[in-house]
């Protein structure tokens, strides 16, 4: 018996013990779009176009900030927590401290998508910063296409709210 099947059998036993009636639905195993690279590319395009700062003729954004932004944008319930935490983090209390979404650090799909975009020259790396790559029109075109087709309105709305935040590395480290 495979490990997953064993775990499911054990879980089934536990649930039956407390009077539950477990039912397994095979259809649910469809992989979430949260792991889809196209979705991540779209989020990076939106975040870069909405929140990157202009420096001379190029734009740049902190790698960690981009990661946090796309993470929160795809989970808009966290936006309120992030904004609340950011506004009170200098007078942090136990109540506000826990509101910083920290799960984004383990988002490996995003990291892989960034590697892909850097390899495609859509973005360029410089230390902690991500800059316009020689082929940055790829992200710009994607972003304008998304706006025209009115896609990901909630995600873009979250990013627009977050653009007002003053971001620092200390903040991204949860401090």
């Amino acid at each position, binding site marked *: 018996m495979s490990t997953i099947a064993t775990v499911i059998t054990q879980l089934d036993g536990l649930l039956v013990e407390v009077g539950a009636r477990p039912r397994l*639905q095979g*259809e*649910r195993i*469809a*992989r*979430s*779009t949260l*792991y*889809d*690279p*196209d*979705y991540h*590319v*779209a989020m990076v*395009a939106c975040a870069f176009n909405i929140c990157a700062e202009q420096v001379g003729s190029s734009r740049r954004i902190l790698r960690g900030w981009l990661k946090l932004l796309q993470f929160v944008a*795809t*989970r*808009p*319930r966290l936006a309120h927590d992030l904004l609340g935490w950011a506004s009170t983090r200098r007078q942090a209390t136990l109540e506000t401290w826990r509101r910083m979404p920290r799960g984004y650090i383990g988002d*490996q*799909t995003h990291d*892989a*998508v960034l*590697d*892909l*975009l850097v*390899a*495609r*020259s*859509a973005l360029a790396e410089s230390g902690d910063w991500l800059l316009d790559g020689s082929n940055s029109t*790829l*992200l710009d*075109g*994607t972003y304008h*296409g*998304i706006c025209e*087709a009115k*896609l*990901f309105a*909630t*995600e873009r709305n979250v990013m627009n709210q977050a653009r007002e935040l003053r971001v620092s590395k200390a903040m991204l480290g949860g401090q």
Partner: protein
Amino acid sequence: VTYIERIEVGGTSSAGAFEGALDITPGLFVVSADNAFGKTLAATAVVWCLGLEPMFGLRDDDPVCFPLAVRDVIDFPSVKAAQVISSFASVTFRRSDGARLRLRRDIIGTPQEVTVDEFEPRASESRRSKMVARRKTMADEAAGLQNLLFRWFALPRSAIMNNRGEEKEIYLENLAPHFYIDQTEAWSTVQALQVFRYGQQDISAASVEYLLGADEALRSRLRSQAHATRQSQLKQRASDLTTLILHAFAKQGWPVDWSAHGSLQDIISRWTRTSVQEIARKKFKFDLKKEQEQLSKKLDVLNKRLSKEGLDKHNAASSSNASQAVIDLKSRRHALREELNVTRTQYVDQRQLAETLEHRINAAKDVLRLKNLGLGRIDEVECPTCHRHLEPSSFGLTVQSTSAVEAHITALQRDRALVLDNARSAADQATRLSAEIEAIDEQLRGAERALSVVNAAAGNVREQLATIATEIVEVQRLMEKNHAVSAELDRLQADVEAWVREAQTVVADEPASGDLSNRVRALLDSLRAFLAALGHAGIDLENLSMIRLDESYTPYLDHRRLRSVGSASDHARLVMAYALALATASSVVNGRHPGFVVFDEPLQQNPDPSHRAMFRRFLARLARERLPYSVLIFTSLEVQEVEELRAAAVPVHTPRAKHFLQLVSPN
């Protein structure tokens, strides 16, 4: 044809009396004078005397639409900065039967009043009266100015619904934006000066229908508006009634599926399928007769024990029983409260989860569209170092197919249905628990009263009697409560039935729309002709037939609003074409247009030579066509242009004086 025969403005100043007058002939009449002559002053006099200042967004009787020369300080060639002491405007209209109407209204003085002189045909004597310019201008049969104007111009009064569902009228200032085109604001779009602040529903469309004489369409519009208002009121009442029913059921701990969603027909269909008593009986096993029978039996037993049966003198358990009952009820209440808190937390969590799932579904649908549109797809990557072809999988990424995303959406939708179902169950459970806690509270109060009575009784027998008595009271209370519940259900059902009867009459009374097609066709034909003649840049012979009017009579070129077609200077052409088309169509279909159109500075938007030449050709054409209404144009033309127009039989008036207002010689 009704036309403006004369415009006068005058007054007194510190330098003496001053005046200016303009005599106008019927048909097309062009007044050409230099800038600062006072053309707009003369044009404004027309709307002022008609009491139409709300068109400019002004409060009643506020003359700020006039230049300072008639309100404050005026310059004459001989005297500079003379103080204006009083001023007035006067306009005379002439009807085709020869009757004349002269309106005179103070600018500085008492602008609240308008002096009206009515001249019968061929009479030299007039009937003079004082009218109130703005206050109750329609409602006052004796002194309301608009009341008189509608009568004199033979315009019928027409009702329209406002946003509060009250019946109001179409006022002259709602019609005037179609025949008075002001220099400053009115050239930007059709009906730019329409007055919306009175809250009349669909006033833009209704004003067009009025001028086209579409009385049946207007009546139908009023019926539709009344019908919609009635429907909305009924929906509100259905919603209120639903709240009462849900509350009544919740009080008993009965979660019920009763709503006021959907159309009236939907609600009628749902509400006639069952009754509130039937729901209580079938779903919650509330049968008044059976309940009361059981309680009556219990009451008989208690009464028998109280009156006939012997009591055990040695039974001392009454007090401890009463005390235990209180303790049990308190424990039960505590447990229920705990359960209610957990249920409410579960409900909130389920709702939040449902919200998150909703977002996930929307995001997944967007991802599907993104993939179908091919946006942001990165299929090929070349390694910058070794130039090897890399795929997303080289980076540990798996691109999902559209069918995988569709499967994910289906799974999410299933999850959402499940979560919403859970949330609904939690809400129902919370309703039941709340009602149960309330019932326990009531029982507890009874038990505490019983304990107090039993404790006050002296001796075992008295304690037992007190216990029986309190039990009798409790049974009687339950019987009364059942009666009250039943009476409340009966009352609610009676309200539901009354609502259904009323809603059925409203649904059956669906108003039919009035026939407008001939009138709108006349407007559309004229509009196309005038747009082509004025040289609208967005219109040519190919697309002329594609011009159409939407349900509010806004002109469209195929699927684009005509206002967004062509250049910015075409806005003025569209406004002029629409105003003339409406006057023409009204004459063709025997409509309600007053018969004159005033344009102030039509060339200001089109000052270049080619457009001026086009405009002159247009005026020459208007002069040839012998219009069935009057067109008064205030503009500024060059000497050659005036000669060219006069040669084409266009009546052009060029005042000799430099300014409209002149000092009156004391002699």
